């Protein structure tokens, strides 16, 4: 609508006539400045990608897939990201299993069940504020609660302690995005369900959730990708010294054992002065960004495709 007016030839002609045929230079400069700031914001992304990919190419050219399958090493020519990838994937899966059902459940309560009471408003405020707590503070929570207070169960600074910390970190984001998706489903859908005698749960299960599902899934995927790239809490809950996974161990031992994650590997390599590790860091960043950008872009494109206007 706005665009139709903006680009209407008549409007433009009238405006030019009113301006007395003069070119409004200041307006053009203003528009150019705005455009440049947008381009600068996006251009930095391009510079970053070019720089990182440029630094990473020699490593991939020389070592190929070996970089992805080799374990960490103090020798830059042999060090790989296998443990980092494994750790990150396990962390993300555990976070998904924990945070998604709880987050969606909480969102269903807040949007579908809760009435507008002081308690509901308090819960909503709490969730929004939890989403703004810095990641490193969640690391302190994980250190104090999951690694130390519950150390007997989790095995101290272990994979499961890290996963629990990340799950708590993304939970408020999952709740907020899921609640937004539920809110977008119009009330008439629910009323139709109630009208034929369905109970609250039946309405939610069969009428609201199917429509909200695309939004909920993209929101969850975006939060999981945030967990995948998060480093700060993991530095507090273990994983810096390059944990080595316990080989030939059961699932419980694996979860209670030391671990490392891809962003943590990047962090510790960044701090090494060796030029070989600088190239390795760039290569590891390419792996991390490739996974995250792919996942994020898929989620955002899917959301835009299934974006439903009621």
């Amino acid at each position: 609508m706005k665009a139709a007016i903006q680009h209407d030839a008549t409007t433009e002609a009238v405006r030019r006539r009113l301006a007395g045929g003069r070119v409004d230079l200041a307006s053009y400069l203003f528009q150019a400045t705005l455009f440049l700031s947008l381009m600068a914001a996006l251009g930095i992304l391009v510079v970053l990608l070019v720089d990182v990919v440029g630094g990473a190419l020699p490593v991939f050219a020389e070592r190929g897939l070996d970089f992805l399958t080799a374990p960490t090493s103090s020798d830059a020519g042999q060090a790989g990201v296998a443990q980092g990838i494994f750790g990150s994937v396990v962390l993300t899966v555990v976070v998904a299993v924990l945070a998604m059902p709880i987050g969606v459940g909480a969102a269903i309560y807040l949007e579908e069940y809760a009435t507008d009471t002081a308690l509901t408003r308090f819960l909503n405020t709490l969730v929004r504020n939890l989403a703004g707590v810095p990641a490193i503070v969640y690391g302190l929570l994980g250190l104090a609660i999951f690694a130390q207070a519950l150390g007997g169960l989790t095995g101290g600074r272990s994979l499961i302690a890290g996963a629990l910390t990340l799950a708590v970190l993304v939970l408020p984001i999952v709740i907020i995005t899921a609640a937004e998706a539920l809110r977008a489903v119009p009330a008439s859908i629910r009323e139709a369900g109630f009208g034929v005698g369905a109970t609250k749960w039946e309405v939610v299960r069969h009428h609201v959730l199917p429509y909200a599902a695309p939004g909920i899934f993209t929101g969850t995927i975006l939060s999981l990708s945030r967990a995948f790239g998060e480093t700060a809490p993991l530095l507090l809950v273990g994983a810096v010294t390059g944990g080595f996974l316990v080989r030939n161990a059961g699932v419980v031992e694996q979860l209670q054992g030391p671990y490392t994650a891809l962003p943590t590997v990047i962090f510790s390599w960044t701090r090494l002065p060796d030029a070989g590790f600088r190239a390795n860091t760039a290569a590891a960043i390419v792996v991390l960004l490739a996974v995250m950008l792919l996942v994020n872009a898929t989620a955002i494109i899917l959301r835009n495709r299934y974006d439903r206007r009621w």
Partner: protein
Amino acid sequence: MTTATQPPTLSVDDLRGSHARRRRELAIRLVFFAAAGLSVIISGLIVLSLIGEATNFITRVAPDALLDPAFFPQRELFGIPTLVVGTFIVALIGMAVATPLGLGAAIYLSEYAQPRVRKALKPVLEILAGIPSVVLGFFALTVISPQVVNPLCPGVTPLSNYAAAGLAVGILITPLVASVSEDAMYAVPRSLREASYGLGAKKRTTSIRIVVPAAVSGIVAALIIAFSRAIGETLIVAVASGATGGGRFTLDPCGPGQTMTAAMTSLAIGSDRPRGDSLAYPSLFFIGLLLFAMTLVLNIIGEAFVRRVRRAY
């Protein structure tokens, strides 16, 4: 009438449906309520886990060690002002980058860009916002510091410095500023713009004098939330502002220095070893509590501004 002829079998209980169905409804409701209630437990645990060790620290630390113009935990010097000032230097440099870039991009997207361009670029901003901060830390150290900061600063600058970290933080929060303030500007009703055009105002005048003031709550909220993100940002400063193990009080943006989150990171990496007697471990929680309080206050103020936008239109 009809009521007299109707058999008196239909009671309120019949309308409620079956007993089992109602019990199931209640159980499901309780499960969802428990999920929502978990956020209360998490908030409680955050505060609890921070306050315990933080009070342990504050009762044992010497007051003059707390105000010392240096932060060296191994030497029992916990100059908290040093860290807070460092944090603000980095965050303010970040805001100096993100405010003009973010707002400029937002005005362009909301007022000038064609709908097709806007629809294509908004997701790109979101993707940009999703870049992990550890990547920007590496970028700050390898590109920003040698190629941007070094030529601007007098003399030979150390590789790690506040300016490089601040610029990288600015890049990190620019998409956030752009996205949140664009939402606010886009939400300004079209009638306001049309009224302005009707009075003969130019597009530029309408953008600056009508749209921006109408969306000011949202813009302020965007800036506050971005500032809160900037002071809580960890990996960029841990990698690029340098000073592992401690730092002196400095206002020089070209020099290396410690911030709250960078100090926490280096404490955490080393805190495997000294437990028990050392004050280094509890100091981690004290700084964390301070950071938590600062970001909480900022977020609450930002949230209040966001609510004002919602009420306005």
